[in-house]
C-alpha cells in the first residue's frame, strides 16, 4: 500500500517578465523630451497666449486641443515654492538632502517640478534664480536634468 514518491530532480524554469512595448510619446511630450536630450527646454503656447511648461496637448483650464506652437523656455528660472527633503528615498533624483521645487522657467507662465541641489536648507529661498545641471549622457528623460542649481554657482 505504501509507496514513496521520489522526485528525480528539481525542475527549473526561467522567466523574464517584461513589457516589450514601444510607446510613442505623441507630438507634445515627444518634442519636450527630445528637446531635453538636446539640452533645450520646450514649452507650448496656450490658447490665451501664455506658455505652458511642461507642455500639454490641451488647455489645462478648458481641455481644448492646442496647436503645436512650441516655444523654447529657460533654461534659467525662478523658484516659486520648495520642499526640503531631509531623507531622500531610493526613487529620488539625489541621494543626499535636496529640495523639490516648482520652477517657473524664463519665458513660461507655469512652473515645472524638479530637484534643486544645494548643500543645506538655508541655501534655498522662494524667488531664487536657478539653472539646470545637465547630465552628460542624455537620452530624452526628465532626469536628463540632474537637478537645478543656483545661478551664481554655475
Amino acid at each position, binding site marked *: 500500500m505504501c509507496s514513496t514518491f521520489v522526485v528525480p530532480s528539481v525542475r527549473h524554469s526561467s522567466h523574464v517578465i517584461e513589457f516589450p512595448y514601444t510607446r510613442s510619446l505623441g507630438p507634445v511630450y515627444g518634442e519636450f*523630451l527630445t528637446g531635453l536630450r538636446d539640452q533645450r527646454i520646450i514649452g507650448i503656447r496656450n490658447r490665451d497666449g501664455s506658455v505652458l511648461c511642461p507642455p500639454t496637448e490641451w488647455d489645462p483650464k478648458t481641455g481644448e486641443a492646442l496647436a503645436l506652437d512650441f516655444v523654447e523656455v529657460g533654461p534659467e528660472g525662478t523658484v516659486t*515654492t*520648495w520642499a*526640503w527633503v531631509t531623507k531622500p*528615498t*531610493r*526613487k529620488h533624483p539625489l541621494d543626499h538632502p535636496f529640495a523639490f521645487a516648482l520652477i*517657473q522657467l524664463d519665458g513660461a507662465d507655469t512652473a515645472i*517640478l524638479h530637484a534643486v541641489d544645494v548643500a543645506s536648507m538655508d541655501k534655498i529661498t522662494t524667488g531664487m534664480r536657478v539653472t539646470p545641471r545637465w547630465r552628460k549622457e542624455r537620452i530624452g528623460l526628465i532626469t536628463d536634468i540632474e537637478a537645478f542649481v543656483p545661478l551664481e554657482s554655475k
Partner: protein
Amino acid sequence: MADIAIIGYSQSPSWREAELTEPQFLFPVISEAIDHAKIERREIGFTCAGSCDYLSGQTFAFVMNLEAVGAWPPISESHVEMDGAWALYEAWVRLQAGDIDTALVFGSGKSSPGNLSEIYPLQLDPYTLTPLGVDPASMAALQARALIDAGLVTEREMAQVVARNRRDAMNNPRAQVSGDFDEDALLAEPYLTAPLRKHDLPPISDGACAVILATADKARAVCERPVWIRGIDHRIEVHQPGMRDLTVSSSTQIAGKNAGVGNAPVDVAELCVSFSHEESVLRRALGLAENVKVNPSGGPLSANPLMAVGISRFAEAARQIAEQGAHRAIAHASSGQALQQNMVAVLEGD
C-alpha cells in the same frame, strides 16, 4: 436628484500594522454596518468597494475583499480603485435609478506593508513626475511653503491644528494617534520634509469603513435617524502642480458650491485634512465660519486608513448628526497630489 440617506455605518480602529488580512478586518466592519442599519444582508441591491491594489502589491487584490461581503447567491457589485468615498458616490448615482433601494459601500486599505513614499509617485505623470519619485510629503510641503510664503498659514497654526486633532482624537476609540500635545514642543521637533514636521503628516494606518445607503422610502421604513445626503459633488484640477495656484483649492470651492454648502449654516465638518496646512485651504475654499467645528473625530491626522479615510469622513459626519445632535454637516474626501481632487457632500438630519 432623489434624496439618499446614510442609514448605517461602521469603522474599524486604525492600526499602525494590522495583523489581520484586509478581508479579515473588513468582515466585522461590513457585518456591523448591516446590523447598524437594521437590515438583512440579502436586502442590499448594490455593493461598491474602494481599495487600491498598489497598496496590496497584487493585481485584483480587491476581489478577495468580496469574501467579507458574501457573494452567493450572486450579487451586483462594483469597485473603484479609489477611496471608499468614491464608491459611495457611485452607489449614490446607482440609487438614483430607483430600481433598487439599498446599497453597501466600503473602503479598506492595508498600507503598512508597503513603502508609501515609493508607491505613491506611481500615480503621477509617468514622464515628468514619476521619474523624480515625488512623494506625497514633498508635494504637500510644496503647498505648505506656498501658503506660508503667501501669509495664509504659519507653522505655529499648523502645530495648533495637529495638537487640536490629537486632543479631539482622545474621545475617538478608533483613532491611532491621540493625546495632549504642547504646540511649542511640536514646533521644537525637527523637519521631515520642510516646512513639514513628522506630526504635520498623517499616520500610516490600516483599516476599513463601511456605510449603508438607502432611498428615502427605505430609509424611513428602517431607520429612526436617517442622515440625508443633500448634495454631493466631485471636481478635479489639472495634474501638474505647477499649473495650479496651490494657495487655494478651486476644486473644493466648486464642489462645495454645487453640493450646497453655503445654502445654510454648517454645524460641523469632517474634512480630509491629511497634512496640517490643508485645513486652512479647505476652510477657506468651503467658506466655513469660524465657529464651525472641524474634525471632532481627530481627522486623518489621527487615523489615516488609506482608501477608507475619505469614506470615514462620511461615517464621522453622519455620526455627528445621528449621535451627537448636529443638524448639518459636511463630509469631504480628497485624492491625488496636494488636494488635486476633492469631493464635498452636505449631510443633514431630519
